[in-house]
């Protein structure tokens, strides 16, 4: 009988760029890393509904309201795709939700910043979703099948998110002086938190080494951050806005922009729970979860009754 060395098989699949599927053997640490990353990603989508949801009732036109509703609904859908991808690794939805609601699980620190003005809705779509897309395009080729497939669907939908955000910014940037000022203020506040989304610098990134080795990630935090800045600068120039970074300048030698690092002390503080909105976000999630409890109970009871009727018939 042939003896299979599962670890070798796993390594050889990765070396060939093959995809790992739920029933394949995988090292425990690979599984743990994925559960952590995918569930945090899912939580980010769900918590990410809150800053923009804040503006649905105050959207300045019916068109704007429809767009924002559709976008926030998409984010909820993305969370659901990701939760089931994580569940395929052996964790449960209840476990993940519990970790989120008790504050044990992390989510993207960007969603702990407030959306103070209507321009923030534009800045979030354009910059935050733009940065997320950069990461998610890479993750379409991640080594775990269900995660990669969720990413393909998500990337298709995110493109609308970024474009609607930029369109909103163009209206403001080419509007009245007060509107332009509002757009500039949003850019000033969102620029550095957006750069933080790619994670700590490569030299200090604790999870990067394994993620790259296992082909969960295919590019480093710094590479993605640099690409984001290069891609976004022409969009900022078109709007006639300025980046709140006096070190930002074109560097011919590296064929890219030089720019200042975000304040990593602030990043760590926000992750630890001390950002402007951490408590509010967690309270909102807990409130809607507990207020939805009766719906889950009723649905469970109804399904049970349906099954009983079916068995009796």
């Amino acid at each position, binding site marked *: 009988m042939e003896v299979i060395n599962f670890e070798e098989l796993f390594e050889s699949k990765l070396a060939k760029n093959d995809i790992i599927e739920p029933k394949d*053997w995988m090292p425990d640490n690979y599984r743990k890393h994925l559960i952590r990353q995918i569930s945090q990603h899912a939580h980010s989508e769900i918590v990410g509904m809150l800053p923009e949801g804040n503006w649905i009732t105050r959207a300045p036109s019916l068109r704007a309201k429809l767009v924002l509703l559709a976008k926030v609904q998409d984010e909820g859908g993305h969370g*659901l*795709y990701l939760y*089931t991808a994580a*569940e395929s690794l052996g964790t449960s939805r209840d476990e993940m939700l519990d970790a989120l609601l008790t504050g044990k699980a992390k989510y993207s620190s960007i969603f702990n910043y407030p959306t103070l003005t209507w321009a923030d809705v534009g800045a979030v779509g354009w910059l935050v979703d733009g940065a997320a897309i950069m990461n998610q395009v890479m993750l379409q080729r991640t080594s775990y099948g269900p995660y990669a497939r969720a990413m393909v*669907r998500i990337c298709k*939908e995110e493109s609308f998110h970024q474009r609607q955000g930029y369109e909103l910014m163009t209206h403001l940037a080419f509007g009245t002086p007060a509107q332009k000022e509002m757009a500039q203020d949003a850019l000033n506040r969102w620029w550095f938190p957006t750069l933080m989304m790619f994670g700590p610098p490569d030299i200090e990134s604790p999870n990067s080494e394994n993620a790259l080795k296992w082909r969960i990630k295919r590019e480093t935090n710094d590479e993605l951050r640099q690409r984001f800045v290069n891609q976004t600068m022409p969009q900022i120039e078109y709007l006639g806005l300025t980046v709140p970074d006096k070190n930002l300048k074109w560097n011919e030698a590296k064929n890219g922009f030089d720019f200042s690092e975000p304040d990593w002390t602030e990043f760590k503080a926000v992750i630890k729970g001390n950002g402007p909105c951490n408590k509010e976000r967690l309270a909102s999630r807990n409130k809607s979860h507990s207020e939805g409890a009766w719906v*889950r109970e009723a*649905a469970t009871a109804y399904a049970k009754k349906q099954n009983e009727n079916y068995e009796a018939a």
Partner: protein
Amino acid sequence: MSKDSQGPMWEVFVQKKAGQPFVHCGNLHAYDKEMALQNARDLYTRRGEGMALWVVPSSAIVSSSPEDMGSFFEPSNDKIYRHPTFYQIPDGVGHM
């Protein structure tokens, strides 16, 4: 930990256009058949991705296991005579 249940898992299959096969597109939680179908519509067909849906309880899916892959599919590996290219057809008889 909360004892909330999110309902059982369902697998979702979408038919893009009439005449095409149903293709697996993902999964979701729902408490009953009706809700599974409505959730599938809201989650997987928000942009005209399909015109028909199947939802199946995940527990009803039976699958082969990767460890058995070799032996399970082995019976077909040595039967090259099942492929059209195994046969010699003379030139001049046209496309077959």
